[in-house]
Structures are given as structure tokens and as C-alpha cells.
């Protein structure tokens, strides 16, 4: 067991994957010599050389499009997009190429690539450097979407994403990069699509992912002081997501809240709520309540952004509402 920062765990997962498999290469803006805008890839150029750790020009369309071609050609590219907001410039490569190549070519090929990208507020980075766009990508058949909440999961899920034969979007919340947590030695291995119970409870279920898991845990602590035991489910993987685990928790608690940092409207929470309103209908003793960001761009100003990002108070209030 060692205490490791979230960013460091990702670095180690990349290093271990590259050591284990010569077909893993890294591409991204300022990831090689500068070590990455968030220092996630620091030291990897020295370890693995410029052929496998490549600083790219600022050209998201070709970086991601070339990753598709490289993945079809026997490599396992891990491409970094500096801010999730910039995946907008690579949407053809992701949506029309990566997601479809296997299907539309009749199962002839796989596209074993990973796109790592940070999302989320907390840095006052403003409307174009803070968005959580994971729901867009989870909406596209052929893509997988993963979003870890702690260093151990970041390690294990990134290794699993690199080993996965499908294109995987690996979303890292910027606010978590400095977070410390235990990384077991040897580090854990895992598979995609499995949720984790972050805190057990019997009165209500809070489903969450990424940094919002910590908001949900804070809310659960506050609720415990009111003798409400909320169970917090960390989805970890959004596409596919662990429907069975959410349903099993709902079957115990009969109340459901879904909390995420992304805009509430048309989001991941909407999908989970709709599914549970269907397959979990008989289990529900209260309304399914969603907690997400308001329907507006992420504001820059300190007080504005603080109010924008869903708070533990908002999650606790949602639990109280479904229990009322």
C-alpha cells in the first residue's frame, strides 16, 4: 500500500501498460517533453522514447483521427485531449470513425484506443475549459466511457481501458488530480462496467461518478447526522453502466438520487432515472431526483462557479425530498 495522487496513479498506469505492451503509444499536446499540462505524463518520454511518447501539434481532429488509423493498424494509442471541451474538434474521428469502424466494416477490425481527457470545474477556467460532456459520448453506440473517482480506480480502470479492444473515453476530473489515496502494491486490476459501493446505507441510494462521488459522500455524512443512511454508488463506468448494481441498491433502499457535475438536463442522470423508473418501478417509494449543474455554461467568476458546481447540500436536499 502506498499513498498516491490521482495524477500519479494515471502516470503509473500508463507506464505499466507501456512496459507490458510495446504497441501502447501516447499522443497529445505537450505530453512528452513538457510532461503534460497537468503533469500526468511526466517522465514517460525518458522511459519510453520519442517514438512512443509523441508531442503533437495543436490539431485535435488529426490526433484523434490518426489514433483510429493507428489502432486499426496494430497499435494501442492513448491520446490525451487537454480539456474535454476540445473533443468538440475531434467529434468526427470519435463519432463517425472510432465508434463505427468495427460495426460498419462487419467486425473485421477493432479500435483499441483510449482518449484521456480532463473535465469539470473548480479551476475557474471558464466556459470553454470546464465542461463535462461525457453524456454526449455515452450516447454514441460503439464508444465506452469511464470516469474514476479515486487513485486506485484511476489506475485499474485505465489499465482496463487500454486493454479493452473498443474505443474508450477516459474522463479525469481536474479537481481530483491532486487527490491522495491508497494504491495497493501490486496495483489492482479490474474490468469496465462494474460499479462500486462507496458507502453502504439502507435509506436511500445516491448514484454518482467522478468527483461528484465525493460530494455525494459528504452529503451522506451530513444525512447520517439526521439518522438517514444513504448508500453511495460510484458508477466508475458510464457506458456501459452497471444497471444491476444500481437496481440492487434501489431494491434495498427504495429511494434514488442521481448526482453529477455535468448539466442536469439530458444528462447521464436522465438515462439512469429513466431506466430505474422502468425496470425499478416496483421498488420506488419516492420520486427519482436528479442533481446536476444548472442549464447554463460554466461561469468563470469564483462565486459564480462555486454556486454552479452541485454541492453536498444540494445532494442532501435531494435525498430529503425523495424521503419526504
Amino acid at each position: 500500500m502506498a499513498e498516491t495522487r490521482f495524477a500519479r496513479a494515471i502516470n503509473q498506469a500508463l507506464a505499466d501498460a507501456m512496459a507490458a505492451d510495446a504497441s501502447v503509444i501516447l499522443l497529445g499536446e505537450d505530453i512528452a517533453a513538457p510532461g503534460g499540462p497537468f503533469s500526468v505524463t511526466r517522465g514517460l518520454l525518458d522511459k519510453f522514447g520519442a517514438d512512443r511518447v509523441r508531442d503533437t501539434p495543436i490539431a485535435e481532429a488529426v490526433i484523434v483521427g490518426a489514433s483510429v488509423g493507428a489502432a486499426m493498424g496494430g497499435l494501442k494509442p492513448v491520446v490525451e485531449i487537454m480539456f474535454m471541451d476540445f473533443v468538440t474538434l475531434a467529434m468526427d474521428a470519435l463519432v463517425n470513425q472510432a465508434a463505427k469502424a468495427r460495426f460498419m466494416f462487419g467486425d473485421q477490425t477493432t479500435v483499441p484506443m483510449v482518449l484521456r481527457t480532463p473535465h469539470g470545474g473548480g479551476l475557474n477556467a471558464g466556459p470553454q475549459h470546464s465542461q463535462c460532456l461525457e453524456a454526449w459520448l455515452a450516447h454514441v453506440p460503439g464508444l465506452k466511457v469511464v470516469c474514476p473517482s479515486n487513485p486506485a480506480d484511476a489506475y485499474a480502470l485505465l489499465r482496463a481501458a487500454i486493454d479493452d479492444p473498443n474505443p474508450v473515453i477516459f474522463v479525469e476530473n481536474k479537481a481530483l488530480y491532486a487527490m491522495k489515496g491508497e494504491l495497493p502494491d501490486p496495483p489492482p486490476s479490474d474490468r469496465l462496467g462494474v460499479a462500486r459501493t462507496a458507502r453502504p446505507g439502507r435509506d436511500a441510494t445516491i448514484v454518482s461518478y467522478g468527483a461528484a462521488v465525493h460530494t455525494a459522500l459528504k452529503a451522506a455524512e451530513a444525512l447520517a447526522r439526521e439518522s438517514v443512511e444513504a448508500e453511495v454508488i460510484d458508477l466508475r463506468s458510464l457506458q456501459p453502466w452497471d444497471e444491476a448494481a444500481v437496481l440492487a441498491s434501489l431494491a434495498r433502499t427504495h429511494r434514488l438520487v442521481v448526482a453529477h457535475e455535468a448539466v442536469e438536463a439530458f444528462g447521464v442522470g436522465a438515462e439512469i432515472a429513466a431506466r430505474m423508473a422502468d425496470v425499478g418501478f416496483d421498488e420506488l417509494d419516492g420520486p427519482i431526483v436528479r442533481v446536476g449543474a444548472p442549464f447554463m455554461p460554466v461561469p468563470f467568476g469564483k462565486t459564480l462557479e462555486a454556486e454552479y458546481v452541485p454541492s453536498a447540500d444540494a445532494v442532501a436536499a435531494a435525498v430529503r425530498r425523495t424521503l419526504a
Partner: protein
Amino acid sequence: MKQGPAVPSRARSNGLPARELRALYGRMLLIRRVEEQLGRLFADGEIPGFIHLSIGQEAVAAGVGAALEPRDTAASTHRGHGHAIAKGVDLDRFFLELLGKQDGLCRGRGGSMHVADLSIGMLGANGIVGAGLPIAVGSAIAHQVRKTGAVAVAFFGDGALAEGAVHESLNLAALWKLPFLAVCENNGWGEFSPTDRQLAATLEGLAAAYNLPWTDVDGNDVEAVTLAARHVVAEARAGRPQVLECRTTRVRGHFEGDPQKYRSTEEASAMAARDPLAIAVKALAALGVGEASLQPEAAEIDARIAAAVARARAGALPGMAQARAGVYA
């Protein structure tokens, strides 16, 4: 294709030997006849969706295809039947795919705009204008990292030159000295608009801007295309990425059924004078290969196509369960 009757192996100075030119002619004829057949099948409602024919552009596919090795990879376009055939796709499975059948190259999920055969390095036609370039650049990265010694080629139309991804691709290929060849099929048209109304630059100028050698060739002269392609493929293989611009003619409409109200009759007659098959027949005659001696080959091609069409018609339809299972590996 079987060997035809023995032909003299004379070659013009700097030209191809008759045997090679004859094989190229056969390749072009195969593409032409396949597409004529596709046009009929489409008109009769046997091919769903829409199709873009490359009639008039066969010399580019045949010439570049002849310069490639089996290990080389190629990304194609919406007008990609010729590229697929030149790379060597199985004709039965090609027709099965065009008719949307289970045993098609893509199990009936892709159709005309997504014909692919990864086993021979055919990385797929593409329904997105310009999208083949980033994919071929990525394939070239794989060749470079894995030291396969192979070249990746991207075919694209002149209409793609205004797409940002094309510029990003040319820059990256040049920057990283990738084994990459960009082949522009310049037919003067992007859909229903002439390219000079869409592009302020020229490909020559763009190539220069990205420090890429640019070669200009008559894209309807298969001999010229082949000789130019051999040179640029060899250069690309040595890590000197290249741009090859082929001036060619889109004889048909943008898609089958396009009424083409935007085109003049003068253009049609000018194109007829540049028919790549007629040009090759003339060149063969100059080498002592008469038109009559090409007949057995044509008959063989027609029989081959008829058999493929019959198999495609009889092919089973794909099932939804297997299609759904193909979304993820």
C-alpha cells in the same frame, strides 16, 4: 485475371512494357464494368441507398494500386469502388456488400460508402469528406512505430481540400516524416459546385506550405499515373511523405440519379476525349497490341461480374441480432 495471348514486350522510352500496360488496362476495365453493372443494379432498385461511381477516374485507382505492395494500406472515399478493386477486394464479397447481404465484406452494414477489407490493407471507403486522411496518417504512424516497411495512402477528392482535417493531416505527415502518400483525385467538382468556387488555394501551393513534394499527373493516363505513383510510393516508403495530384474526370453525376443540370455539354465532350480506357487502348496499339486482342479479357471480366452478381442476388440477408452484437468487440 488469366494471362491473355502473348504480346510483344516492347516499351516506349520511359514507358511501361506492353505486358504491364495490358494488365493495367485489364484492371481499369474491371473497375469500369463493375461500376456500369452497379449503375444498372442501382437503377433497377437492387442496390439500396445511393452510390457514387468513379467512371472516368479508373486510371488513378489502377495506377496507384499497381504501385502498392500487399502490405501497404489505403483509405478511400465515398467514390471508392475503384480503390477497393485495385487493392484487390474479393469481387463476390464486394457485390454481396453492395446489395446489403450477410456475406458481404462488411456483413451488409456498410454498403458502397464503407467498403473495407482490412486483410488486404483496404482501410475503408468513407462517408465523411476528408476523413480518410487522418486515418491513413494513423496507419502510417503504425507502420513507422512497428517498422512494417509499408506505406499508407489516402485517396481524396479536390472537394476535400477545404476540410480542416486535411490540412492537419498534411502537416502531421510532413512533421513526423511518415510513410504517407496523399492522392488527390482532382475532377474539378465537389458535388454540384466547381472546385474553383470552393478553394482559394491550389494543392501545389498547399503541399509547398507543408514542405511536401507535389507531383502533378494526368490522372486519365494510366501509364503516367503508374510511373508517377511508383516514384512517390518509393519516396514515401523511405520516410519522405508525398502529395500526388491526379487531374481526372467525373463522367457520371455526383451520385447515380443526379440530373446534372449544373453541367455543360462541352464538358461532356471534352471528357469523352480523355477517356482513360481509350487512352490506354491507343497506347497499347502503339506497342503493337491491337484492340481485337483485348476482347477475350473483356469477355472474361463480364463473366466474372455476372457470376458475382448472381451470387450476390442469392445471398442471405443479415440478421439484426448479429448486427447488434457487432457494436462492441
